[in-house]
């Protein structure tokens, strides 16, 4: 391809997601052409497109500006954008309508758009960068139209809301917090994000959050472990199926969806295990719903300002409130981690590792809430169990991953009932109930005094009975261990 004769001036060009995607693609192609095999080594050079694709999201997340992003990109691939190491001068993106120097190209890019474009599909950008220029390739960018909201967007904001009855609090992060992203990005473990649309601006952004399901899973572990401790059992005392049901929600085994519904079994489970009534799952071939509905934790940031403002019922001006909050991108940082192989010790078979972990910074705040299905009709013991769990959670004060390394410490006031939600009862009710029904609860947990499950016909086995996996009725603790 010939160097375009004219230089394009994008100073006054519209800054849209489509123009950002296009210019960034051409700039990455120009940059890729400057990567020197001798500098980075044959091994990396052979899988360069994959490395570029993997590196883009961590780079755009860890930097705060287009210039910073490009510096980090060039450093990673040992590229000198000034052209000092060759005869070609500074890097230029060659577009069909002319050429533009890298710094001018970056100046015309909106970094929020860059984040969005890269998050959307880094493989697209890498593929374009590594493809050879051809006629008509530019038309591909018009195939991805601009989001409809951009342009003549009119803010649409919540007015008088009929809010569901819920319990909420605000977490303040005492230490940075980790919560793994959905997809891997090389050796960088990013924070979990989801796409949001800000009704104040109509713009989209990828914002860190903590999934309600993750909090629910953590609460499940806590409430079940505490219940077992109260009745004097350890998880390892229980049959594997029961442990799996209590701590992971169980699994829908063959026949569970069509199995005869046993109301007595369902009632007994809810009655004898209040934590089960709270989070439930599938046990004894009964698929059951729990009472607790746990929401995502919402980061206090400009993109979520409308949501936080409405949820907390703040009376101040939303625009001012939003302006006072930082952008989500300013609330994360990368932390370098290493793992040593200790090869100096004989017999060490460890693996040497270096990795980065993206964290939400300490001091950030998150809004968290939960609801109780049928809050008026819930059993007092279940509601009391929830109160006990929330107290326990407050004392534990930890969320997310890597808690052993000091991450994820939080502080918060107790969960407060929102409009119309009744206050939760005293946790002592639950503790007294457990004390009173302790023996029955132990028997349920250990699956004692239950009939053995029917032997299911094996799939495709011409009616032969399947081999029982493990005896269920007598799968209690080993008396030799002295647990009972």
């Amino acid at each position, binding site marked *: 391809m010939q160097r375009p004769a004219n230089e394009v001036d994008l100073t006054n060009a519209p800054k849209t997601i489509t123009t950002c995607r296009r210019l960034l693609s051409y700039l990455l192609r120009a940059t890729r052409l400057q990567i020197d095999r001798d500098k980075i080594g044959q091994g990396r050079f052979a899988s360069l497109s994959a490395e570029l694709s993997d590196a883009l999201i961590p780079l755009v997340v860890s930097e705060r500006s287009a210039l910073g992003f490009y510096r980090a990109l060039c450093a990673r691939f040992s590229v000198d954008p000034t052209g000092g190491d060759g005869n070609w001068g500074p890097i230029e993106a060659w577009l069909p309508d002319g050429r533009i120097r890298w710094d001018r190209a970056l100046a015309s890019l909106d970094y929020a758009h860059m984040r969005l474009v890269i998050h959307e599909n880094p493989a697209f950008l890498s593929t374009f960068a590594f493809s050879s220029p051809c006629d008509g390739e530019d038309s591909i960018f018009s195939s991805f139209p601009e*989001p*409809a*909201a951009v342009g003549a*967007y009119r803010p*649409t904001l*919540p007015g008088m*809301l*009929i*809010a*569901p*009855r819920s319990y909420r609090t605000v977490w303040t992060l005492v230490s940075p917090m980790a919560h793994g992203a*959905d997809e891997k990005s090389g050796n960088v473990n990013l924070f979990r994000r*989801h*796409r*949001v*649309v*800000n*009704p104040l601006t*109509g713009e*989209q952004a990828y914002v860190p959050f903590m*999934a*309600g*399901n*993750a*909090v*629910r*899973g953590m609460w499940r*572990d806590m409430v079940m472990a505490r219940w077992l401790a109260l009745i004097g059992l350890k*998880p*390892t005392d*229980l049959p*594997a199926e029961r*442990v*799996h049901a209590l*701590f*992971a*929600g169980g*699994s829908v085994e063959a026949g569970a969806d069509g199995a005869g519904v046993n109301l007595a079994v*369902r009632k007994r489970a809810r009655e004898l295990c209040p934590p089960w009534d709270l989070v439930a799952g599938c046990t004894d071939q009964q*698929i*059951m*719903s729990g*009472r*607790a*509905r*746990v*929401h*995502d934790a919402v980061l206090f940031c400009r993109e979520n300002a409308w949501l936080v403002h*409405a*949820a907390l019922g703040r009376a101040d001006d939303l625009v001012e409130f939003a302006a006072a909050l930082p952008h989500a991108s300013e609330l994360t940082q990368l932390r370098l981690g290493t793992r040593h192989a200790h090869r100096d010790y004989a017999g060490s078979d460890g693996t040497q590792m270096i990795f980065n972990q993206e964290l939400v910074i300490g001091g950030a705040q998150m809004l968290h*809430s939960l*609801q109780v*299905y*049928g*809050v*008026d*009709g*819930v059993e007092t013991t279940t509601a009391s169990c929830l109160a006990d769990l929330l107290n326990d959670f407050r004392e534990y004060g930890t969320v997310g991953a890597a808690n052993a390394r000091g991450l994820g410490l939080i502080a918060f006031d107790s969960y407060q009932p929102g409009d119309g939600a009744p206050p939760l009862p005293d946790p002592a009710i639950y503790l007294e109930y457990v004390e009173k029904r302790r023996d029955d609860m132990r028997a349920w947990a250990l699956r004692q005094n239950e009939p053995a499950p029917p032997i299911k016909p094996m799939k495709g086995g011409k009616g032969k009975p399947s081999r029982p*996996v*493990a005896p269920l009725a007598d799968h209690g603790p080993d008396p030799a261990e002295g647990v009972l």
Partner: protein
Amino acid sequence: MTWLDENRDWLARAAERCRPRSSEPLRLRVWLRSPLVWDAWNGVGIDGALQHAIVLRETGRLADDVFADAPRSVFADIAVPLADVERAGRRIACASWAQPPVCAVESLRYWRKRARAELMPIPGGKGVLVTGGGAYKSLQIPVPTLATPYVDFFVVGDRSLLSDLLRDVGAIGRGRAGGLGSVLGTEITSESEDRSLRWRGRPMRATPVADEHEAALHFEHGAYELREAATRAPYWHMSTRALCAMPIVRLGQEAA
């Protein structure tokens, strides 16, 4: 005693309390605090969520417990504060599917589940717990979602009964227990025209039709597709299935 006999009291109570006294065209703007599980093939309805709230209120029990032992031949029609109309011999609620605003975008959420192998007793025999498959398999399942600040439902119903009931509609769509489709709050506003069933030539919800000629008579070409679908909440019940004109939902389409 049959299931219907056992549950007749609260069903009658619900019918008395929740049947609309007066109906008017309304827009329910449901503001969301988290993404909504999204399936353009089968849209998100509000009538099922209202029924769920009614069951909880009237029985104090979770709906899956109440209906767990209901025979499949029995269809319990739970009253909601929405007007009904008859289409092709089927009664349907005057309630549109969720209509996303033009700024809504599709997204993805992974649903994860991890077997707590470290808590399990050592299984008999081999002493190995398989988490790559079988009953203790750990899962990471992608769930298609919609990132949107709100969705609109166009209904014909009783404003005051809906205002009260919506306090117990905490989430819509699937994946509710884990935080998806969480409702921040709902706004109710009056509408000058009824858009609950049809608007600008397209169906706003699954609408039963006798045949393709009837569908073509009511809806514009290209605005619907014909297939069998559930027509009335609870939508899981097989007896509610009939030939329907189904909306073709396209994101970015103006709903209001």
